[in-house]
């Protein structure tokens, strides 16, 4: 895992080194661009953190336009995202920053918004086909998430036994890509004695995820680990194992927020988990969107820009989605009992 993080860093350094020659574009503060930050739905901590990052960049750049943070209710996520994106086009917003929860169903609305002059920058979760999307700000390389999850499972399970995945919604593009990447990683010889027995979905709702986690324990008596690549799922699973006194038998890992996971990491229910900073993701997404809105970049492959305190980034082809473009934030951190408390404040 350490090795991977190091190699990712090396890769990033190499990329950034190359870009230094390409003259990174910097933002002109004080422009005017109305922007909308549209999460999957309201009431989830990581999205609020992303908004904090966006607000930080908004203030830093002195944008005289507005930054609006709005989203649908969880029950109405798909139709609600389509509605907000469509309305943003009518309102003449400069950019909508979208964490997509509607799969390809949002593509026609995104294309219509683009036609109306509203750019669509996705973050956290892209439009699978890339249709109607200007660029995707990717948190980390999807392939490397798979390896990190496989490695955390390896270290917690001691390299052998049964484990299961508890994901978000069945059509969440990012979770599906990460699970696929993990399954790819598991083919390696190192993981030969580990068996992924099932993948279930908790709809990114606490209660559903909690019950799904308990159902997994019932269905697979030899289960040693629940791997949950969603902040809602990992917390609900850890709570379920703790409530039922199962933590000695079944561990929990995946992608979680330190603030939500700290107690489970310290009591051993979730000894290791990983995440990137949502604040940084919101900050970088805002910088990208502002540069697009003010015409400093166009969203073409190869464009390099400076995103304030985070440094230089380059727009590249998205290896996971042919024809689509991405900006790779990366890398991310693995949390355990030694470093979780410092992050959880």
């Amino acid at each position, binding site marked *: 895992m350490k090795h991977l993080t190091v190699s990712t860093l090396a890769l990033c350094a190499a990329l950034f080194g190359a870009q230094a020659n390409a003259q990174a574009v910097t933002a002109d503060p004080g422009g005017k661009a109305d922007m909308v930050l549209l999460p999957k*739905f*309201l009431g989830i901590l990581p999205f609020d953190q992303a908004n904090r990052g966006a607000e930080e960049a908004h203030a830093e750049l002195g944008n005289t336009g507005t930054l609006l943070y709005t989203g649908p209710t969880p029950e*109405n996520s798909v*139709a609600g995202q389509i509605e907000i994106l469509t309305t943003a086009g009518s309102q003449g917003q400069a950019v909508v920053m979208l964490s997509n929860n509607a799969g390809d169903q*949002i593509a026609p609305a995104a294309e219509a918004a683009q036609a109306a002059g509203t750019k669509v920058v996705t973050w956290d979760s892209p439009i699978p086909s890339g249709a109607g999307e200007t660029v995707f700000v990717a948190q980390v390389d999807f392939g490397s998430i798979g390896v990190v999850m496989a490695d955390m499972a390896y270290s917690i399970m001691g390299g052998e036994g049964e484990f299961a995945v508890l994901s978000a*919604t*069945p059509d969440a593009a990012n979770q599906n890509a990460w699970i696929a990447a993990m399954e790819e990683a598991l083919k390696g010889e190192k993981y030969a004695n580990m068996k992924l027995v099932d993948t279930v979905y908790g709809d990114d709702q606490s209660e559903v995820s909690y019950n799904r986690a308990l159902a997994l324990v019932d269905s697979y008596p030899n289960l040693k680990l629940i791997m949950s690549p969603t902040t809602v799922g990992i917390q609900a699973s850890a709570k379920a194992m703790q409530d039922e006194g199962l933590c000695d038998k079944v561990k929990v890992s995946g992608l979680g927020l330190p603030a939500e996971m700290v107690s489970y990491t310290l009591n051993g229910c979730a000894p290791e988990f990983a995440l990137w900073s949502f604040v940084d993701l919101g900050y970088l997404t805002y910088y990208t969107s502002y540069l697009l809105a003010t015409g400093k970049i166009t969203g073409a492959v190869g464009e390099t820009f400076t995103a304030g305190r985070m440094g230089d980034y380059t727009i590249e082809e998205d290896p996971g989605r042919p024809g689509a473009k991405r900006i790779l934030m990366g890398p991310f951190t693995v949390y355990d009992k030694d470093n979780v408390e410092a992050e959880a404040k």
Partner: protein
Amino acid sequence: MTALRSWEGLLFAVLILIYAVNAWNSPVFLTVGNQINMFQLSVEKIIVALVMTFVIINGEIDLSIASVMGLAACAFGWMVQQGAPAGGAVAIALAIGFLCGAFNALFIVGFGIPSLVVTLATMIAFRGFARVLVEDRGISDFPDWFDALGQKGLIGPVPLAMVLFAVFAVLAYLILQRTAFGRKVYFIGANRAVAEFSGLEVRAVKARIFIASGVISALAGLLFAARVGAVRGDIANGFELDVITMVLLGGVSIFGGTGTMSGTILAILIVLALRNGMALENITGHIQTGVLGILLILSVMVPIIRETGTRLIARVR
């Protein structure tokens, strides 16, 4: 003043008020593009609301509509994915809607089980089939002509679904308010026992309404699939409550027997304009839902208060 005394008159006044406030608040509201978007974003629900008006006036309920929409859309997507011609898949999806409606009718009319129970069960079952069919992963890549029907203008900028809504609204109005069938719908809804003793074909009327509900819901599901260019198992999930809300707001009694098509149509316009106005004002989804909830409570309360008031006045006199 007399016009205001009727529920429709009141709804009309509210509608004018909402349009005026929205136009005042946002320069975008009255533009053709926004008005079309406003209808397009909910067009499938409002089409189903027309047939739901028949169902509720008839003294029944159909909770399975959104699941029929989902099943028809998923069946269509699945067939196209398997390589079937899209035209044939549309026809089969509509036939599935017919069968869903007939299945509901069989248990409600044939076995006399309350429609609340039957359609609650089929709401779950039809949704289950839809999820099994597409295995919870999205299907897209429909033929261009199919996507165009949902996304491009048919008459000028007005897309097919809105044209269909306009045609269906007129037809639904004529059938409910101007035909013998419409009068039977009211009569049965007001008092089923009397209707049966009078020799009305109660079962045939109810069966036809549930089958129509199934077919129209399937059509609405296909329109939704065309509009968003993709389907997945949860498509149209939860739409039944929005549809029923619009119909009840229109003054249709949940106990059956009363209400009008023009009431439903006015309520549809009110809900759409209100939602769109709030969206343009950047009001979040939670508050929008709350406002609609309050509106529904008021729509149930106002007639009761008015009735009590009238009775009290009569007593004083």
